[in-house]
């Protein structure tokens, strides 16, 4: 039995192409046997509120980017349509809030106007000289200290957990490894064990779930054991699929890894996996 896919993007995310489709993603989810899926559209800010921590930190803007707001009205219409058309599937609404610790007021304002079922917290960018920069660019900047940048990323993630209660699930907590210079196979988890454990400790202490992301390189059993040893209780599965056919990708394998790390299905097929 496959778990829900708690991290899916559709045409309502700014970084999906013309083939993205919320309804097609639902059709694919039914096809592969998923019980549920959450459309967690990107919630990234290019301008922000004076009350946001980003302002207090002196952040002025991002580097030129394509981030766009979510069309919440059409999104709500389409979620409703998906629920109507796929009654065998549980369809959740959601957002993936980027850097929610920096944009607490803006995230809150968005959710007040357009409440959702699921909120993921993500760290895609780091402040550099007063501007936010995507870490997938930053890692390839000339002369960059790659290991130092990764440590800085994980440290910032601890701050994100401690300063934001807006999200329920921590998404792809080692996002930069997707873009590791020289190839993702050269990334060594053990180099960052101490920083991973700090993230896991903070997350477990806040009672939230850790996402196993199947777009990122699949984690080792050992890494998930670190999470368990630090008190981690809940695991969420997320494909992070930006195209319908990627929904539920590699879930069979991910389930095996999570199981070997000591987690089991929750109280029903819609629940997170638990220790």
């Amino acid at each position, binding site marked *: 039995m496959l778990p*829900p896919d708690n991290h899916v993007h559709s045409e309502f995310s700014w*970084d*999906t192409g013309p*083939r993205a*489709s919320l*309804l*097609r993603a639902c*059709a694919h989810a039914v096809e592969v046997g998923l019980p*549920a899926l959450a459309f967690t559209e*990107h919630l990234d800010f290019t301008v922000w509120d004076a009350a946001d921590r980003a302002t207090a930190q002196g952040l002025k803007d*991002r*580097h*030129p*980017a*394509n*981030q766009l707001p979510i069309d919440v009205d059409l999104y*709500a*219409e389409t*979620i*409703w*349509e998906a629920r*109507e*058309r796929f009654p065998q599937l*549980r369809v*959740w*609404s959601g957002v993936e809030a*980027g850097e929610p610790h920096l944009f607490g007021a803006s*995230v*809150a304002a968005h*959710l007040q*106007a*357009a*409440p*959702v*079922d699921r*909120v993921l917290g*993500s760290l895609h*960018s780091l402040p550099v000289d007063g501007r936010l*920069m*995507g870490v*997938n*660019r930053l890692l*390839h*900047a*000339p002369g960059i200290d790659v290991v130092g940048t990764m440590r800085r990323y994980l440290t910032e993630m601890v701050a994100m957990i401690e300063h934001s*209660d*807006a999200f*329920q699930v921590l998404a792809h907590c080692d*996002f930069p490894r*997707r*873009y590791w210079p020289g190839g993702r196979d050269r990334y060594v988890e053990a180099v960052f064990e101490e920083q991973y454990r700090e993230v896991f400790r903070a997350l477990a202490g806040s*009672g*939230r779930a850790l996402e196993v992301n199947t777009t990122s390189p699949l984690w080792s059993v050992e890494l998930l054991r670190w999470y368990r040893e630090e008190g981690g209780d*809940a695991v969420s599965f997320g494909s*992070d699929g*930006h195209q319908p056919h990627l929904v539920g990708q590699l879930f069979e394998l991910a389930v095996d890894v999570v199981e070997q790390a000591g987690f089991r299905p929750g*109280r*029903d097929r*819609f629940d*997170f996996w638990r220790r």
Partner: protein
Amino acid sequence: MDVTAQPLFDGTFSIDAVASTAHAVVAQLHDEAMATIAALADTWDQPVEDAPAVEVEEPVTYREPDTWSVADEEDEPPAEEEEDEVRVLPVLELPPLRLRPRPAGTNVTARLGAAETAAADAATDEFAVPGEGRRQFVAI
């Protein structure tokens, strides 16, 4: 002996002639090799002449990635772009929908109606409602 006959080359060279020619060839090869070695020694670690010079202080202009997903145009050139453009997806055949309930309201939950809201609330993968002072979700 017929002294009027032209002397014919018998296919052999004198030892002196062979040695002289051979020395000349070896000397030429040596000179060429030394010239090549000298040139390589001067230029082996130099950039190709056409390569643009990079100023140390030159500012770098960054642009945010086009996606938070894996494939980004600068990180990973879209090799299948042409295929993507011509790929025709089958029509998703779905029956017509009944009219959506539209009670007055300004947010998603209100528009979803009571039944949908109840269904969403009934989702069993929610965390237990946290106690006061330990919110896990922005209750707004």
